[in-house]
């Protein structure tokens, strides 16, 4: 095995996504343990800061450039990346398990004839192999998997691997202008949810459940989220009731999240909700029912009425911030 690693970089509005930087750092950590080499590849129009990826441990970034590649196209991106990986003999590929990563990685896997492990939350070395841990059943269990094919793709869950502080090193950036493109699938437009952080990417989440008693009270969830810079989330019950959009749902049929801080407001903690957020680093629960299962996994709790506690929290944090 040659241990030639490649990290696929994702950009949005010319900026490298944070989850891609996490993947670069994770790949270079593993590469140094296995005495391998690691490079990166990006696809798009202009992208800022590619050289700075050197600070996270890689020597070279190849940028496959064409302005028509600004938006993701599964067909164009996967053929460019696969051809690049094959021509340069990369045997192990890393990418973040973002919406794009999860769409693109399996297609690249087929093109490279590679085994694929998705949503990895830790990577360890066992002998000469990489052992990847991934949650299954939305986190009710974990499996350690080993990819046994010669080519391998690891898709890493965002917000889990710590990118740390970069060094001052710069990577060599090689720009390749791409002429012929294959747009069998094309993103025509991106509709952004106005000014909202996505729960899957957020460092902090404030979620509301049935205890919020109605959609008209979710301004409290949003206000608390707003002052600490968190995303707003919701339990399945309130999404099914139509109070909140599905994009906010945390849990087994929604998003699995692991933010630094998860504040659960009026959420009792059904098993499928706990599965989706139990790996959060710090969990706070506010609930009237002292026997609510959410308190079993909360680091801090207040047994009380959300309509009294939440406004007081907002006031207290405002006071400290000012």
């Amino acid at each position, binding site marked *: 095995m040659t241990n030639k690693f490649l990290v696929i970089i994702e950009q949005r509005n010319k900026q490298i996504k944070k989850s891609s930087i996490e993947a670069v750092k994770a790949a270079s950590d593993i590469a140094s343990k296995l005495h391998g080499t690691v490079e990166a590849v990006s696809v798009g129009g202009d992208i800022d800061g590619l050289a700075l990826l050197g600070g996270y441990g890689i020597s070279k970034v190849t940028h496959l450039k064409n302005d028509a590649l600004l938006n993701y196209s599964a067909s164009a991106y996967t053929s460019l990346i696969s051809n690049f990986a094959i021509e340069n003999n990369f045997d192990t590929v890393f990418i973040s398990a973002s*919406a794009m990563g999860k769409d693109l990685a399996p297609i690249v896997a087929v093109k490279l004839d590679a085994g694929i492990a998705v949503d990895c939350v830790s990577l360890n070395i066992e002998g000469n192999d990489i052992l990847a841990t991934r949650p299954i059943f939305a986190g009710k269990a974990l499996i350690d998997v080993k990819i046994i094919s010669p080519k391998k793709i690891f898709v890493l869950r965002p917000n889990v691997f710590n990118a740390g502080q970069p060094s001052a090193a710069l990577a060599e950036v090689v720009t390749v202008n791409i002429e012929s493109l294959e747009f069998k699938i094309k993103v025509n437009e991106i509709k952004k949810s106005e000014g909202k952080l996505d729960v899957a990417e957020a460092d902090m989440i404030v979620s509301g459940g049935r205890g919020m008693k109605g959609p008209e009270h979710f301004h409290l969830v949003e206000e608390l989220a707003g002052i600490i810079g968190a995303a707003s989330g919701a339990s399945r019950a309130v999404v099914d009731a139509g109070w909140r959009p599905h994009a906010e749902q945390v849990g087994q049929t929604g998003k699995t999240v692991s933010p630094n*801080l998860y504040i659960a407001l009026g959420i009792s903690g059904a098993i499928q909700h706990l599965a989706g957020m139990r790996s959060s680093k710090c969990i706070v629960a506010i609930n009237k029912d002292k026997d609510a299962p959410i308190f079993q996994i909360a680091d801090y709790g207040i047994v009380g009425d959300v309509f009294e506690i939440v406004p007081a929290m907002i006031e207290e944090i405002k006071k400290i911030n000012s």
Partner: protein
Amino acid sequence: MKIAVCVSHVPDTAAKININSSGKEIDPAGVTYILNPYDEFAIEEALKTKEKFGGETVVISLGSDASKESLRKALAMGIDNAVLLKDAQYRDSLSVAKALAEEIKFQNAELVFFGKQSVDYDNSIVGQLTSELLGYNCISVAVSFALEGNNIVCEREIEGGKEVVETNLPALITTQKGLNEPRYASLKGIMAAKKKEIVEKIPATTSNYVEVVTMKKPTAKQPGRIVGTDVNAVPELVRLLREEAKVI
């Protein structure tokens, strides 16, 4: 047009998961199995497409005899035919995709729907793998679907918004909650489904690329501290979050 739907039979989301003595698989004792929730959106979209444009629908599942229950549910909702690719052995995603792609090719389906992930192994890649093996165009995590002639436009969910994606048939779409409201099976549908034949086939064996080394339960989290039982606890809670947990 022939439309295929691929479904899986999975533990209920309310089920507690325990691990069996092999240390690599779950213990099925006491676990209720259901049709994978995301696959209901796939079935519904296949039915709606057939109602609009005509054609024939087929549901395919890879699994043991138990999967027939989910195939029957799809038939009861209105799918025309069902195929069980009978195999109880562990297969990784790529191996599952190879078996499904083979059957889709045999069925000559030019439009295929998958749930965006099955809620057991949570891979969320079998649809994309199958699509690429078939050489079809794939749109994953679709929350809207519009077919006109050969042309497909979907919205797919991404971080903080949606992408509007366009492609052509033949295509494979993986479905996300929000795409549609799956119908309930009618009594007539349930009775008719009981009489329908489920075609059984043995899929070709293929080697796995990914091996499960161990399966384990996450380390149990110790319950933390109840800071208080009323509004007076708020300053202390905020202090703890700032000074002890250092998260705000």
